[in-house]
């Protein structure tokens, strides 16, 4: 019996180690091979700097829009019971399930210059396809469902009775949300925002369909790879990988200080 336990432990440890290696090795190799070169490129490669700046700007815009539109939606889905609630939740999750180039094509059909919306916007002087706005739309489409889902969870962790008490003390629904629910779920919402930002930065499939130029960092690395080969793509890819650590560290820091109200929210 004891031997069987020991064998099972060894097998589990081996499987876990191989799996971990599979996850870590490519990124470690990428940063090892192109990290230093990539950081040096930041000083000399203007196109890389522009692509990174555009990536950060569009990802931040998409995150802001996800927060703006996703917060009320997440609240509605979490707090209210209404007919079609499950269907609405499923529809919001849909972009997570379809391949991202397909998402790009779907967006093109709605926002392209020959579509009703895209054509009207173009008439108003607002160009979506082939512009930073197109990048923001692509990022928002693929990343916003993550925000809605994570924010719903954050609201779910705040007992509805806190709001009930606030309202019995004279707060209308909006003020109770602002004074009680929002501060109590802020950490979860920030974490959701960080995830959305990271997902937006790493998006490629939908962006490449909607806006190839101007290039975001992911499109630039692909462009360098197809045009000049691995050596030219490597520094860009390594910088993108390093950029991915920023939200990762932010999330870890947030998690470390999380639980401030844990155990206090009955």
């Amino acid at each position, binding site marked *: 019996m004891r031997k069987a336990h020991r064998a099972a432990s060894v097998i589990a440890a081996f499987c876990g180690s191989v799996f971990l290696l599979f996850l870590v090795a490519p990124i470690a190799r990428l940063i090892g091979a192109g990290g230093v070169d990539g950081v040096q490129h930041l000083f000399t490669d203007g196109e890389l700097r522009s692509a990174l700046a555009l990536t950060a700007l569009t990802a931040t815009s998409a995150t802001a829009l996800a927060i703006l539109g996703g917060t009320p939606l997440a609240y509605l889905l979490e707090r209210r019971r209404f007919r079609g609630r499950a269907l609405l939740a499923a529809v919001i999750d849909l972009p997570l399930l379809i391949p991202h180039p397909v998402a790009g094509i779907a967006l093109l059909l709605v926002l392209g210059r020959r579509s009703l919306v895209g054509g009207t916007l173009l008439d108003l002087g607002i160009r979506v396809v082939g512009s930073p706005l197109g990048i923001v739309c692509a990022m928002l489409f693929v990343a916003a469902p993550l925000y809605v889902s994570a924010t719903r969870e954050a609201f779910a962790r705040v007992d509805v009775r806190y709001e*009930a008490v606030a*309202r*019995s*003390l*004279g707060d*209308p629904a909006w003020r109770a949300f602002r004074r009680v629910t929002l501060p109590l779920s802020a950490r979860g919402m920030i974490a959701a925002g960080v995830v959305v930002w990271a997902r937006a930065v790493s998006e490629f499939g939908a962006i490449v369909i909607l806006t190839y130029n101007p290039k975001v960092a992911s499109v630039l690395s692909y462009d360098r790879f197809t045009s000049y080969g691995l050596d030219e793509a490597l520094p860009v890819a390594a910088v993108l990988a390093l950029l991915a650590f920023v939200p990762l560290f932010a999330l870890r820091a947030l998690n470390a200080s999380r639980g401030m109200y844990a155990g206090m929210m009955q």
Partner: protein
Amino acid sequence: MIEAQGLGARVGEFELRDVSFVVPEGKYGVVIGAAGSGKTTLLETIAGIIPLRGGVLKLNGLDMSGVAPERRDAGIVYQHGYLFPHLSVEENVRYGARDVPFADAIAKRIGATELYAREVRGLSGGERQLVAIARALAPKPRVLLLDEPFSALDPRRRTLVRREVRAIVRELGMTVLQVTHDFTEAGLLGDVAILLDQGRVLQSGPPERLFREPASPYIAEFLGAENVYAGVVRHLDDTVPDLADGAEELLARGHRAIEFKAGLLTLYTVGDAPAGEGHAVIRAEEVLISAAPQSSSARNQFKGVVSEVATTGALTRVTVEISGTPIIAALTTRSAQELVLREGSEVWASFKAMAVHLC
């Protein structure tokens, strides 16, 4: 004033059905019921947190259909307090207050100002309840809904805070509805008691009447009546025994002398219970124990043998077997000691005709 007429509400599978009662303006109502009977749901329905599905709810004479919680002028205190953990104790107390000095004065009376310097996360359950009570009183609501607000306080503090809250709500003329499991608390505080079971009101009225005249044996047992007997009611039209103890007044008002047989036990009382099968309820504190027959007006006297003596602090419960039927009496421990009660002791158990309630 709280007026509920045929109130209905639903939470998941649970339903409040046809709930009707009145707590007059400035009076203290208590809701009693087993866990899961719908007590908290009732408070939340009155507060507007759970929507009404039927019936009429009036607070201070105004129909509350479709009225938002913040417009009901009704404060609520939950058993767990639900203090806002991102705010200080002081900020919690002043959260809904329009008059900050008043809020602080209330907090001082309740004993919550001593906690102002503490963080919410460091408060005990009882301390949280103190702060939650002060927070709910601070905006001076006309209706106060309390869900077991004193349950986490130690006995001494509970008595003090209960008294202080009673005084404050009287001064401010608030109408209160409090959920409690504690029958003593219900008796001490309540002007009106409402007994809830599976989302329905089983009985409501002054607590004294609920305890003395329960509408059914289930209610009697729920309210802690120790002596509940199933038997047969017979009206004594021809031979009215000497019932004494004020029963004549009831007889004059049209009530009837009654003989109640439960096995070998025969009890006499006065009432308007119909003849046939029924139940008799006698509260343990109505039963007197003596070493010899009483020469008092107690109509029901029985010789029996003590089968159990259980002492809990100042009170002792004595079970006396009478012709195979147990009767429990509650007496002071001092009296029990004076009677030198032991298992097997022969004693007399007696109670007045008026102590027997038929339902």
